[in-house]
């Protein structure tokens, strides 16, 4: 792997073509499940091993995925679904992203975990649970998922509903959206306690030191 030449070019072309086909299918299923339109450009690039990420949604709305990720069944599907969720996320723009990274990446990552089995069923894909668990366990975005789960369980909102509602809220307003749910629910000491929990999680989600 990694050697130049016609064989390598053919292999990259095959990876690109298969990813393109599967991303189109994921897009249709996500639009169906969420009811949101995807802004994905329809372009996917196979990224070389020299890039330091698994996949990325570019600001042009192209998707890039590293070539070795595209050759590992579970990493390929989890990365494709994760990157396909960014273009259905409301208000993902440069400024809102840099100020609210966890409110985007944590939500997209947890939505990926919640929705993937339904996508696998629809596409008749078999994935190894042990591999999926290992991929989940090693993801840095667990920092964000953990804080979102703290807030969700405190609010007592069902998982899928919580993450899909947040995906549909503009990214710049997600933090306030969640805070307001608690503000409208509690008074007195319970409200103070909510504010403490919220502020602690919000700091992590915004990466405020």
């Amino acid at each position, binding site marked *: 792997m990694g050697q130049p030449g016609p064989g390598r070019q053919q292999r990259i072309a095959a990876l690109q073509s298969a990813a393109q086909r599967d991303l189109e299918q994921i897009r249709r299923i996500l639009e169906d499940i969420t009811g949101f339109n995807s802004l994905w450009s329809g372009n996917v690039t196979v990224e070389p*091993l020299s890039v*330091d990420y698994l996949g990325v949604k*570019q600001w042009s709305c192209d998707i890039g995925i590293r070539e070795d990720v595209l050759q590992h069944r579970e990493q390929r599907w989890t990365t494709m679904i994760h990157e396909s969720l960014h273009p259905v996320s409301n208000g993902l723009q440069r400024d809102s992203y840099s100020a609210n*990274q966890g409110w985007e990446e944590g939500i997209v990552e947890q939505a990926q975990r919640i929705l993937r089995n339904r996508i696998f069923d629809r596409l008749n894909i078999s994935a190894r649970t042990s591999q999926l668990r290992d991929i989940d366990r*090693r993801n840095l975005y667990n920092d964000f998922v953990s804080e979102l789960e703290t807030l969700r369980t405190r609010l007592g909102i069902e998982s899928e509903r919580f993450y899909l509602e947040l995906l549909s809220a503009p990214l710049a307003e997600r933090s306030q959206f969640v805070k307001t749910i608690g503000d409208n629910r509690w008074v007195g000491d319970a409200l103070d306690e909510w504010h403490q929990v919220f502020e602690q999680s919000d700091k992590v989600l915004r*990466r405020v030191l």
Partner: protein
Amino acid sequence: MAEDNIELARRMSYARTIEEIQAVKKEAHEWLQQHPDDLTVLSAGEGLAMMESALVNKEQVKRASA
């Protein structure tokens, strides 16, 4: 290694200036040469790439309007 890679990945996700991003990006690249299958650092790489691209664009817009 487990502690080192999580600490590096967290620093990647806390980088908020172009200078911080470039410094931690170099560190991550060197780390990944030694640990190419480190999913924790690779998972943080996405956010770093998006953040860098957002900040570079912001600088370009600022310069163009100056």
